[in-house]
């Protein structure tokens, strides 16, 4: 995919402290839906602000369709943005808010009205065109903000935690709505969030931010199943980590510290030597009777706690003194009590090998 929006080694630093954005490079294709996911202070919003032009990079370049944006003023960039707190103009009606970008561009009045009506219809708000923002619910205000950011046909739409202020049901509705708009218009969208579920359900690709850097960029399944490092693995989803050592003389086996050798399916880009073995809790299953032979690995687990999520149970306990979490669905673990002993099985393909950060190596194995 050729890059439509090209972020090239962008650094943003404020004074002497660690840079807020520390060498971010991302190539985003035309029409792609890319999510910037990360904890607060990870540099995702600052990167977005630099694309919008509210912040200037200390170094590096941001190119849109081949031309550099860096020296272009925000009001000439033709980049749409939806803010977390909506940032509607309180003294204007919904229709006037949506008409604002058209007014600024000197669009004819009749044409303005036609496009405003169209934009409001696309978010199902025709009936509220003459209301002021203070007379609307949060969800309605966010729809106005969306219509306002799309009505002038921007090259890119930036969304800065747009659903952060909404309750859960409304969030899900708006997620569907935003995806529908993305499909229908085919506009390039960059979506900033710290909510991993949003990132997983909506994105073509997810860029995981931490400490001003992009830790990994890939499809939601890639970052979930094959995280590049422990940070990504921990930030997205729930996981178990074990320290391990890859012995080149025994391919297909990894020695888990304090547990023993386990079979691990070979990975294309597997690290060697000191590694970390990640197993998602939902990959662990109850081993029934004696049929755990063959290729499966097993853990003996003592249960400390059982948390009921309705659709599944999270079983928290230990295996040989190491913490272990397993997720059970379909009534497999009904009636399980703290103190119980379980045998859990997992296939060699259920684990994922990660390089171990140097700092942890001395203490672990």
């Amino acid at each position, binding site marked *: 995919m050729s890059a439509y929006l090209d972020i090239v080694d962008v650094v943003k630093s404020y004074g002497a402290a660690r840079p807020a954005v520390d060498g971010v490079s991302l190539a985003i294709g035309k029409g792609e839906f890319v999510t910037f996911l990360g904890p607060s202070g990870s540099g995702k919003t600052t990167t977005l602000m630099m694309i*919008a*032009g*509210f912040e200037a990079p200390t170094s590096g370049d941001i190119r849109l369709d081949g031309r550099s944006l860096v020296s272009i*003023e*925000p*009001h*000439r*960039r*033709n*980049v*749409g*943005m939806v*803010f977390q*707190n909506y*940032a*509607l*103009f*309180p*003294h204007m009606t919904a229709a006037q808010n949506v008409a*604002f*970008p058209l007014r*600024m*561009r000197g669009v004819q009045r009749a044409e303005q009205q036609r496009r405003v009506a169209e934009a409001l219809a696309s978010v199902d708000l025709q009936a509220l065109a003459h209301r*002021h923002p*203070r*007379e609307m619910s949060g969800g309605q205000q966010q729809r106005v*903000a969306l219509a*306002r*950011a799309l009505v*002038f046909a921007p090259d890119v739409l930036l969304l800065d935690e747009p659903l952060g202020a909404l309750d859960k049901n409304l969030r899900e509705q708006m997620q569907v709505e935003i995806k529908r708009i993305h499909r229908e218009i085919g506009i390039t969208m960059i979506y900033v969030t710290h909510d991993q579920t949003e990132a997983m359900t909506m994105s073509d690709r997810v860029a995981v931010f931490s400490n001003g850097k992009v830790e990994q960029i890939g499809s939601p399944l890639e970052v979930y199943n094959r995280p590049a490092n422990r940070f990504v693995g921990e930030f997205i989803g729930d996981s178990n980590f074990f320290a391990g050592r890859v012995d080149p003389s025994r391919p297909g086996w990894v020695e888990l510290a304090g547990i023993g050798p386990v079979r691990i399916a070979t990975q294309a880009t597997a690290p060697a030597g000191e590694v970390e073995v990640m197993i998602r809790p939902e990959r662990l299953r109850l081993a029934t009777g004696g049929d755990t032979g063959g290729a499966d690995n097993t853990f003996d687990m003592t249960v400390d706690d059982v948390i009921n999520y309705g659709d599944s149970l999270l079983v928290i306990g230990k295996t040989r003194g190491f913490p272990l979490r397993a997720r059970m669905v379909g009534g497999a673990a009904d009636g399980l009590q703290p103190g119980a002993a379980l045998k859990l099985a997992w296939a060699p393909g259920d684990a994922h090998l990660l390089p171990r950060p140097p700092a942890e190596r001395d203490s672990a194995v």
Partner: protein
Amino acid sequence: MTRFSDWFAWLVLLFLAAPLAIVVPMSFSNAPSFQFPPPAWGVQYYRAFFADPRWLQPTVNSFIIGAATAVVTMALGIPAAFAIVRHRFAGRGWVNLLLLLPLTAPHIVLALGYYTYFGRLRLTQTYLGVVLAHTCLCVPIVYLTLSAALKGFDRNVERAAMNLGANPWRVFRHVTFPMLRPAFLVAALFAFIQSFDETVVALFISGRDASTLPRKIFDSLRTQADPVVAVVSTLLLGIVLAGTIASRLAARRRRVETPA
């Protein structure tokens, strides 16, 4: 507890309103001097006020000086408030302090300073002199009012406007200014009232040519206890009352038009 605080509130109101209960009836008096209760009723002092240029001229002067002070103060206070709230620069704390300094100095001290200094510049007894002195007294009030409003202003709304294609001037014209208009109006009104009410500095430097209403009232009381003073007070009270009621009605109409 509620009962006590109710009583207390009424007591405070009575205390504040009591002088009015004396001044207003006295303005409709027939007595040759201040006398309460008035021996007989009449409107002769209202006639006297509107026929006498020695009263009308200071009234006009007060309006001119008040309006000019409001304009000059806003011209200084708006940029100052924006600069200090929105920018970080060397000496920002000191400038902030300097802007508030006139609040802390007693008016009589300031008046003495203006009297000697403006005299040398030949600014005493001129509109310009009084306007400049009043501006100095009003800047802190305007600055405080505007900076409070600015601090609570969501910058993202301006960013949104920029993002939607508005250049900095249009952001101000279409978004920042309309949103801050109430604060601007209140600040300008405060400046006008402060100037309109101000007596001490006006006594020292307004002289005969630029004499303001408070100065005229003071002069009049000192020399003859003319009941026209009660008329002036009643008229001012009427204007303030009308203004307050009008702004209340306007606010209520706006709420009715756009039910929240």
